[in-house]
């Protein structure tokens, strides 16, 4: 399966699971805005990522309807009642079912479009008045695909006799569909041949080039040049539903079965059949059907399968096979046609397409110029007939074969104005027994010479170029049967996760050795034992680190995994919007932990969309600004120490700070006074506020104000940060900084109130011990001066509310202060004592502890104690 599709399936499953949890949560608490927002974002992301795959359009459309409805819910226009939630949960189940189908077969089932339609209708029916009105207007418009009972399309003649016969005898309603896809339909996700292939009760179809002649050099495979003619016995409703999304490109005709009843083929040699026709007519009038059948069998043998006569005979045969007595009158019509060469339906009302002119291959106009190419082709046909004659065959079909060869040769000779040779050839071919090949060959050679093609002798086939020579089956070189070494292993990620878990446990277990060493010395007074344990610890520690690194390396994957989807996305979206955009990928080999890379995908989709939709201007606008017509988006990854930096940079219109402020004011996000006061940097931060969007129009792609706040939330959940830089008309750069790996965190242990806490090392700027007298009050706040900077200090035990017993704060000369550095602030945390730094595997808090956001998680220490790890980003909010 396509790598991209596989990723989509995996991601979507997670999203769907999140969504179902979300809906259940909202059902309990309908006022939960946060969850409603999250649900909306899930639908938004599903819509976006499924939109990459054109064949998923039923899924995309259903999700889109869900997104719209949730948007109304978000706006407070609709209340999310349990009934509505039921529909959504049904939809989620359906999405999962579709994903299963995708996983099994790589495509959606044939009924996907109708299922999607059903969901769309259910969801849309719940929407407000506005949508309903719009729909009414749409319905009032001219309805294109009303089935038409007027003249049946001429292309019915392209349907082979056999198919028309069975259609006619099937006695079902017949619909003819003419489907001319738009040239740019691939970009809206259509795959016309898939649509045709899955037509309900498809009986026949043909594909053709809409424009006839296509120039090979100028041909763009991404422009749809083909059209389809389809015959189906499904009902008009079914067909309309099937072709609903392309209804403007489709015409559906209802075909009266009789319109399919006509013979076709070349009328040459009909006179051979006239004795049969006379007898046949007599037999038919006497109702001697069995005898008639026998006669037909014989007559078919002597007629050419492409001929008009043969066609009539096959029709009679088919009609005889039917038990319907009414068909018997038709039989006479066909027999008559054999003698007259014209077929007329007795009670015919609608103009039946008569066998078209061009099928009578006879060249009536003598003396008309025959081109060299035509001559070459004719000679090739003659030669191929000789070859056929040389091929051994079964006795019973030999007469038929001879008859058809005779027929072909006769036609070719007529075409070449060499009727003089027809007699000779017929003479040779009509005899029983062995055929004299040599005289035949001579005749062909003579004609060849006369036609000025003798130079072609020696080459086996004069024209066209021997394309088919390359068709000999070429077996791919087989690998030698020797033992081959497998260099790359594919391992189920679950196994690596298990390995990772085990390493984490080992890290924790190893941390207990120093405690044991201390115990050996302090409790048992065995210094030697203690020393040995410490040495052993050092060794285990080293191996542990190496092991951890090795496992980490396995989990490291290049960002190209995530980046690879973007060229396609950029291309499709830019085509859709009529913009010219060049996507430059840099640093695709940069590696980071699998989880980080996977989780990057979603925020990046939003950022790239934003750049395409809002950043890059239309070609005209760019030209008028003196910029190159083609915009550039750079997607860059680079490693910076233990972080991976991802940048999305565009050279588009940049962000208009004033507009951002005004919008924020209108949305009530900032006060009037703040409009004046906010710095550029601060104004850009507004973009991350939920529900903020500067785009004037809600477009298909983005611009519903979900983009940036989603990005920030997701990146922060990954332990990273987002920065945005922009200059008007020069472009915008969004920078995501993420940890290379999330598996192991290094924390500094600190003690206060006899309790140990961990502080993530990346937040610790430094640890200082300050003489007590150096703590000054500045604006009623205790503050220290550190290298000419004023740093406010806070007491950790106060923040955590640790006031109970045992909190004997040692009054020492010096105060231990942890300097915490965050994105926008710096402050000091007073603790009692600093301890060592350790590597831990952070486990998120669960249950009742979950709401204590001051802690980012916990881990087990070597001696079995639980270490709570502080979350400085939350602490700062409590100051």
């Amino acid at each position, binding site marked *: 399966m396509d790598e991209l599709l596989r990723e989509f399936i995996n991601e979507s499953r997670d999203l769907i699971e999140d969504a179902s949890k979300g809906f259940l949560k909202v059902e309990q608490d309908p006022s939960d805005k946060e969850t409603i927002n999250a649900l909306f974002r899930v639908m938004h992301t599903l819509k976006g990522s499924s939109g990459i795959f054109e064949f998923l359009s039923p899924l995309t459309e259903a999700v889109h309807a869900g997104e719209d409805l949730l948007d109304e819910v978000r706006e407070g226009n609709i209340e999310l009642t349990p009934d509505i939630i039921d529909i959504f949960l049904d939809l989620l189940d359906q999405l999962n079912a579709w994903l299963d189908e995708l996983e099994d077969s790589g495509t959606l089932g044939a009924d996907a479009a109708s299922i999607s339609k059903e969901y769309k209708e259910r969801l849309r029916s719940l929407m407000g008045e506005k949508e309903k009105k719009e729909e009414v207007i749409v319905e009032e418009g001219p309805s294109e695909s009303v089935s038409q009972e007027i003249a049946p399309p001429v292309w019915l003649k392209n349907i082979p006799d056999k198919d028309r016969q069975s259609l006619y005898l099937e006695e079902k309603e017949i619909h003819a569909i003419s489907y001319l896809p738009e040239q740019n339909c691939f970009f809206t996700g259509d795959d016309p041949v898939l649509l045709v292939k899955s037509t309900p009760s498809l009986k026949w*179809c043909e594909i053709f080039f809409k424009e006839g002649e296509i120039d090979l050099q100028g041909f763009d495979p991404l422009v749809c040049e083909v059209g389809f003619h389809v015959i189906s016995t499904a009902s008009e409703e079914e067909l309309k539903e099937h072709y609903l999304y392309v209804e403007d490109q489709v015409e559906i005709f209802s075909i009266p079965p009789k319109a399919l009843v006509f013979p076709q083929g070349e009328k040459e040699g009909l006179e051979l059949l006239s004795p049969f026709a006379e007898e046949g007519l007599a037999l038919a009038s006497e109702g001697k059907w069995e005898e008639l059948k026998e006669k037909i069998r014989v007559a078919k043998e002597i007629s050419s399968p492409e001929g008009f006569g043969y066609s009539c005979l096959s029709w009679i045969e088919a009609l005889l096979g039917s038990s319907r007595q009414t068909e018997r009158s038709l039989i006479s019509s066909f027999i008559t046609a054999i003698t007259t060469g014209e077929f007329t339906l007795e009670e015919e009302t609608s103009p039946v397409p008569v066998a078209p002119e061009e099928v009578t291959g006879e060249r009536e106009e003598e003396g008309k110029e025959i081109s060299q190419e035509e001559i070459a082709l004719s000679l090739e046909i003659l030669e191929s007939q000789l070859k056929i004659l040389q091929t051994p065959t079964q006795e019973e079909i030999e007469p038929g074969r001879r008859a058809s060869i005779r027929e072909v040769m006769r036609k070719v000779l007529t075409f070449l104005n060499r009727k003089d040779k027809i007699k000779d050839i017929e003479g040779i071919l009509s005899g029983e027994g062995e055929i004299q090949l040599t005289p035949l060959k001579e005749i062909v050679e003579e004609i060849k010479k006369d036609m000025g093609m003798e130079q072609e002798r020696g080459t086996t086939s004069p024209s066209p170029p021997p394309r088919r020579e390359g068709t000999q089956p070429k077996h791919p070189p087989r690998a030698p049967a020797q033992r081959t070494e497998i260099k790359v292993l594919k391992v189920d990620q679950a196994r690596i996760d298990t390995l990772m878990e085990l390493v984490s446990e080992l890290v924790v277990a190893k941390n207990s050795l120093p405690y044991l060493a201390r115990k050996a010395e302090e409790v048992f007074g065995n210094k030697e034992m203690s020393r040995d344990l410490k040495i052993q610890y050092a060794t285990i520690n080293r191996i542990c680190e190496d092991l951890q690194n090795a496992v980490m390396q396995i989990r490291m994957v290049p960002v190209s995994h995530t980046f690879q989807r973007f060229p396609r996305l950029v291309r499709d979206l830019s085509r859709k919007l009529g913009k010219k955009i060049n996507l430059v990928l840099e640093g695709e080999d940069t590696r980071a932990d699998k989880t980080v890379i996977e989780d990057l995908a979603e925020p990046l989709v939003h950022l790239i969309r934003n750049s395409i939709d809002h950043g890059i201007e239309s070609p005209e606008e760019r030209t008028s600004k003196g910029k190159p017509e083609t915009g550039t988006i750079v997607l860059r990854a680079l490693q910076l120490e233990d972080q991976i930096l991802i940048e999305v940079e565009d050279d588009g219109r940049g962000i208009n700070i004033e507009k951002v402020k005004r919008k924020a004011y209108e949305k009530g996000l900032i006060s009037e006074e703040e409009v004046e006061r906010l710095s550029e940097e601060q104004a850009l931060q507004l973009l991350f506020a939920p529900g903020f969007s500067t785009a004037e129009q809600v477009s298909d792609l983005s611009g519903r104000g979900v983009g940036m706040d989603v990005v920030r939330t997701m990146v922060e959940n990954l332990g990273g940060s987002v920065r945005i830089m922009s200059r008007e008309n020069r472009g915008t750069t969004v920078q995501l900084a993420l940890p290379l790996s999330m598996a192991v965190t290094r924390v500094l242990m600190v003690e206060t109130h006899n309790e140990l806490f961990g502080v993530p090392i990346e937040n610790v700027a430094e640890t200082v011990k300050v003489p007590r007298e150096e703590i000054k009050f500045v604006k009623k706040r205790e503050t220290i001066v550190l290298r000419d900077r004023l740093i406010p200090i806070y007491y950790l035990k106060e923040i955590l509310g640790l006031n109970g017993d045992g909190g004997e704060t040692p009054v020492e000369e010096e105060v231990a202060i942890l300097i915490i550095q965050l994105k926008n602030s710096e402050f000091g945390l007073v603790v009692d004592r600093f301890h060592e730094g350790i590597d831990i595997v952070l486990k998120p808090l669960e249950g009742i502890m979950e709401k204590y956001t001051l802690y980012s998680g916990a881990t087990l220490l070597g001696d079995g104690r639980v270490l709570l790890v502080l979350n400085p980003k939350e602490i700062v909010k409590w100051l």
Partner: protein
Amino acid sequence: MAIEYQGDTAILKGICTIEEAEDFFEWLKNEPSPCVNMEEMEHIHTAILQGILLVKPTIKGIKENTFWGRFIFNTSN
């Protein structure tokens, strides 16, 4: 990748999506006597299909009683 190129033969496997249409058409256009093997093909996107119909390479492995065998690759000849 659903399309494998082996010399003058392109082997179409499984579901061939639009992503491969451009590369495939380039190959078709430039290969002097291309051959397309569809023995393991389940579906080809219209974008790929129209390239085949235009260039008319030698086609192998089309199963007769399928949609492709009945309607697409015999009506096009």
